[in-house]
């Protein structure tokens, strides 16, 4: 039986947390779990989730030697736009603004993989985004055309010109 990490007594409370595919474990005896407010005094079978989260954060926050140091600590992330903190997101599973998908990217990816088994959107795209992508593509082709002309590759230039015309008339 594992020993309590706080006092060495036999541990009866076992916590497992998986973040970024890294598994972290904690073992506590009942007394220490109660002291950390993990277990309620009342006969309620409910674990105190906020206390649990707080304990996990404080114990593991700078998980020594395990996290890539240059990636930074994802649990310290806060959105500069809406002010959402990682712990708040963990607690209720809701993001605060569109920006959060960038801010919390490293912690979102494993969640999205688990829920959807996919990481790249397929399907409908707003008309405004479609137009922007078409414009970008057109600009790209025009750039290539200029290069082809400069390089006197007239065969390639003719091919590019036809593709540009095709796209422009399609618009």
């Amino acid at each position, binding site marked *: 039986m594992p020993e309590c990490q706080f006092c060495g007594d036999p541990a009866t409370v076992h916590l497992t947390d998986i973040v970024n595919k890294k598994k972290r474990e904690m073992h506590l005896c009942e007394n220490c779990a109660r002291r950390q407010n993990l277990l309620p005094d009342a006969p309620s079978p409910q674990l105190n989730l906020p206390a649990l989260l707080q304990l996990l954060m404080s114990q593991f926050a700078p998980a020594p030697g395990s996290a890539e140091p240059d990636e930074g600590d994802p649990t310290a992330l806060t959105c500069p*736009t809406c002010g959402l903190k990682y712990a708040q997101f963990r607690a209720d599973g809701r*993001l605060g603004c*569109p920006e959060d998908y960038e801010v919390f990217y490293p912690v979102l990816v494993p969640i999205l993989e688990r829920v959807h088994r*996919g990481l790249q*959107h397929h*399907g409908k795209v*707003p008309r405004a985004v479609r137009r922007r992508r078409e414009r970008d593509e057109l600009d790209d082709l025009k750039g290539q055309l200029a290069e082809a002309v400069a390089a006197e590759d007239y065969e390639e230039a003719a091919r590019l010109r036809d593709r540009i015309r095709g796209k422009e008339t399609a618009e």
Partner: protein
Amino acid sequence: MNLDRLLPNLGEWLRGIGPESDIVVSSRVRLARNLADMPFGNRANAEQKTETETRVRNAVTTANLPYALEFVDVAKLTPIDRQFLVERQLMSRELASVLDGPRGVAFNETESVSVMVNEEDHLRLQVMRSGLALDEAWTEIDRLDDALEANLAFAFHDQFGYLTACPTNVGTGMRASVMLHLPALSLTKEIEKLFRSLQKINLVVRGLYGEGSRASGDLYQISNQVTLGKSESRVLQEIREVIAQIIQYERRARQLLLKERRQAEQDRVARAIGTLGSATMITSEETMELLSTVRLGIQLHLLDDLPPTTVNQLFIHTQAAHLQKLMGTPLDGEERNAARAKYLRNRLRELGSHQR
């Protein structure tokens, strides 16, 4: 807006027609959308919520659509009116009573289209069809989405697609669901097995009123879980295939019931009608169970003097808010049970004398 005028109508989802309507009650497609420059609902202050409501309201009421959408301010509704719209499947329980602050719902005359504002996401679009008609529902909601997008910039990410408050909806933001009446599979207990296999292929099974609700009256909603990585058309195709299978299972279970215990089923249906027509106190739960048996009886031709749409009308009119509106007065639980029983007795007597 006086919602009482909706009372005599069945609403799109209970019209009782459409493909496979002996088993499929209705099909629904929902899209989650958010404004690009606003915090999501849980981090928006009252001022931002008001602005979101105003912008969406303007877009909704001026959208170029072949039907008009009428906007209802949910914050100003009485609790009974809110519950009434939940029972009609026009808005979620969350929007009705869990969330607060500025919020609303817009819907069309036939109640086939609705747009919730300031739910978990800024917009939740919904299109309903009676029977199995996912493609038609998708076509309609795609057009609605286009029309709203003409006046609103939605949050969209090149990798993650449409951004939503909860990562479980990100991507297409689409939840397609089909409501099935599965009394025979429930009776033969095969339903548990079926649901376990659905979970394995990432489909979700829920009760009548969505997340966390019980399956009342053998009504089940089956919907997709995945919104990121699969296109709308692929998800719809997967659901369609699964529904076709379930329909087959249910039909087979119904035929088996007829073959092996016709007399017992006939008796069960007769007793259900008997209880509905003579009880003096009845809960909504018991009513739904008995109506489920009656509905099955109609489909199996064990009973032929009731049209299926009547069952739908009894079903919706005996829900708490509908009942209180019909009676014209707020009623507590006990009073509702008495009023419900009285309503059912009168309606079934009317129908009986009409038929004979």
